[in-house]
């Protein structure tokens, strides 16, 4: 998560209008889910991959590593769909185990793979958004979509506090380790608990101080912040429209043929 945060600030697509990126990611995501087709999924994987790596300048190795996280997870859950344990063997494969079979059907395998690719391509859409858009920009998009202010303000403060608390916890852990706080399992367990306790108390203190400081700057219950100033470009909007239109057309074509 911290890596993604670093990446999105370095991304070359950072200054592209956030709403454009959001709409592109969401439309494409919906198309992936609606179509559930191999073609669309592969196309989307390809497009978002190219956009993130080529367009955003995110290192390929980073991208692949990030994609491997859902791949592992999805493989495990797809296995659960593909593999059945029954008394009668199915058509694709069957391993006898006592009076049962560890077995799977061809249809099940195709379905499982389809599901996996759909999910993976959906994740790639979200990766495209989060690897190229800072959280503050996403909040702005949500604001324009009329998400309640209280939720947005909470998100803003939560996001800032994640880093403050991470700093606190790493500083405390370092200080503990410097005094052999991790010498064996039992000690590290106690140290961890104490660290968590201190982080809680310290962050409460910090939030009080932050509130005072906000009041000092005339905070009156509404957090007003400047929206980022990245106007949407016509060429980008056309590209998004064409891309999603093509994907939609493919989806419809596949649906009709089925």
């Amino acid at each position: 998560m911290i890596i993604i945060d670093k990446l999105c600030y370095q991304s070359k697509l950072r200054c592209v209008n956030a709403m454009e990126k959001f709409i592109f990611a969401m439309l494409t995501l919906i198309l992936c889910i609606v179509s559930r087709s191999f073609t669309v999924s592969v196309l989307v994987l390809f497009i978002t991959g190219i956009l993130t790596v080529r367009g955003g300048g995110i290192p390929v190795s980073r991208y692949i590593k990030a994609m491997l996280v859902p791949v592992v997870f999805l493989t495990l859950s797809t296995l659960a769909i593909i593999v059945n344990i029954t008394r009668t063997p199915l058509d694709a494969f069957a391993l006898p185990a006592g009076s049962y079979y560890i077995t799977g059907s061809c249809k099940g395998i195709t379905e499982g793979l389809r599901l996996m690719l759909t999910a993976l391509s959906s994740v790639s859409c979200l990766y495209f958004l989060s690897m190229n858009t800072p959280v503050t920009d996403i909040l702005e998009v949500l604001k324009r979509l009329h998400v309640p202010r209280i939720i947005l303000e909470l998100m803003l403060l939560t996001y800032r506090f994640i880093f403050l608390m991470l700093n606190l916890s790493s500083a405390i852990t370092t200080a503990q380790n410097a005094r052999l706080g991790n010498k064996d399992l039992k000690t590290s367990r106690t140290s961890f608990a104490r660290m968590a306790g201190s982080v809680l108390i310290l962050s409460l203190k910090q939030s009080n101080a932050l509130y005072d400081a906000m009041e000092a700057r005339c905070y009156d219950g509404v957090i007003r912040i400047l929206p980022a100033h990245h106007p949407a470009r016509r060429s980008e909007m056309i590209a998004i429209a064409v891309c999603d239109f093509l994907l939609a057309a493919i989806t419809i074509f596949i649906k009709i043929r089925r």
Partner: protein
Amino acid sequence: MPHTLLKADDICYTYDGDHTPALDHLSLEIKSGRKIACMGSNGSGKSTFFLCCNGIRRPDHGTLSYKGKPLDYSRKGLLDLRRKIGIVFQEPDHQIFCADVQQDISFGVLNLGYTETEARKKAAQVMENLGITPFAHKPTHALSGGQKKQVAIAGILAMEPELIILDEPAASLDPLHTEIVHRLIDQMADAGTAVMLSTHDVEYAYAWADDIFLFHNGRILAQGTPEEIFTQKPLLQTVNLNPPAVLSLFQRLTEEQVLPAGLPLPKTMDELIGYLTR
């Protein structure tokens, strides 16, 4: 004719659940056009006093007045007060709440009712003046301590207060950033903003301030010009401060008759060297 900017009359403040008061019948008067340094050990009441100055804390007893008028603690009164008095907190992480530099700087400006265009302009202007435009679009959690401090100061400066209070502005900064912050403070003072700060740096306070207030156990132990304060050894000992090196050296040199008696106190090392090489 300098007039009274801020006046505290017998104010007391005790934090919830504390037995000893943080401010104990403290009275002081700050004149306009003076550069004020508040000194005193940790916990002597400086920060609490600052918080009282812009109405974050309300004294339990006594009155604070700004430009002759007692502080008005109504919503509108407080907004008005905080527009005029800005505080830069000691810990930038306690002040910066946005992940985006520009957004954080413009927060106060927008609260004052400026439009987004105006706020953007003001923020850009302040960032330009402070030379922090290069990291305007970095996330605040990726900044160094010194850069965070500059952002914190920018956030207050953008609101264009009449009086700016800095709570230990150079605390835990490296020499380069200390220098940058000190230069900034001079800029503010030159631009006509009243500046009040707290510091433990005697050399700096001696060279920079027009008036020194010595805080001790929630009261003002002494006040006066740097020359008056820093020549009183017993007073400095009470608050655990050492006299500035220039002054100690100058006094020794006069005692040893290396320098003739009756020279005016030197403000800086350069002035002292001037005496010696003349």
